């Protein structure tokens, strides 16, 4: 994924959206407005990144 790309995939067979930030952080939501808010909060994505085991590396990017 390019360094500047945000991606939101709508999971087939469900109402879920999976968002992926260019830093690698991922988030699941069922509302596109909230999903964009979460992605665009980079680098301070709120909520569940710790639950997902995503941590910042030395460059500040989430891994």
């Amino acid at each position, binding site marked *: 994924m390019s360094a500047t790309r945000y991606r*939101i*995939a709508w999971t087939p067979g469900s109402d879920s959206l999976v968002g992926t930030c260019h830093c690698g952080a991922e988030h699941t939501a069922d509302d*596109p407005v909230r999903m964009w808010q979460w992605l665009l909060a980079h680098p301070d994505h709120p909520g569940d990144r710790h639950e997902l085991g995503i941590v910042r590396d030395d460059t500040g990017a989430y891994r």
Partner: protein
Amino acid sequence: MTTTAFARDQWYVAAYSQEVGDALLARTVLGEPLVLYRTGAGGVVALADRCVHRRFPLSLSHRDGDRIVCGYHGFTYDPGGTCVAVPGQTRIPRTARVPSFPIAEQDSLVWVWIGDPGRADPAAIPRAPWLDAPGWTTVRGMEPLAARYGLLVDNLLDLSHETYLHGGYIGTPEVAQTPITTEVDEDAGVVHVQRRMKDVECPPFYAKSTGIAGRIDRWQDIEYHPPCLYLLHSRIAPTDVEPGPDGDDSGACHAEIAYAITPETETTTLDFWMVARDFALDDENVSQYLAESNRAVVLQDVVALNALERVIAAEPDGYQELSINIDTGGLAARRLLAKLIGR
């Protein structure tokens, strides 16, 4: 929320190349009335469509070679907008000139720069080479919209509306039922929306033009370059005909659908539509069918968006819309437009 303000310092499609010739063509872009014409050397000129003297539209005037002679009192302008003759006197007032606008002609489109001329870089114009390339045949048209351009952006970024508004042409049940993937390339300022439909009904628009009978795989890959250019890479193939490992996709038919979304005023829009295809290249019946069908589809949009404009004009401030998954790409487009406007 809908977008009403303009993004200045941007390129916009003002006309098709084929529309600009010896005649004086009037077009309004971002509230700027323009007169367009082609010089003897073949270049396109865009000047403000208002004589400095008494505001007469230059588009209602006539040409003297590469110059325009105002049809009211004869003020005469060169292609750079400088007044070179006035009636009855030899002294030409120093301020006698009309603004000229940077122009770039590319891929059969005439682009005009609205904003600071010093920032106009033709290299920034997005490409659509198939509109004017060997191996492709293109049909096109333009419909004026009595609606703000943001409504057309919303419309084109969410193609699920095809199922409900364009049944009988391009809409089938599967379009609205198929999940999309949305990507935003932040640096390039481009929104991508991808919908890949497998083993689905072939709508009449493609069944009649491609001759493919039976079920199809249908891809809709949108590429929106805010503010003006929208590209829909459409792939239609009999079910299970896939591109080869070397990228060869000759078993499929491809239609490159393009729209130029040009704000005319805050509440009117020039809706340029184009359909380029890599099949039935010389079949005039297919060209006629695609032109008539796509125009019918666009006119269905025109009716819907004009109605929406009237609704928005009458509604109280602060109305809250509801967005669902199908709006993911449209929301991204709105954000990038807002970014350009705020620049």
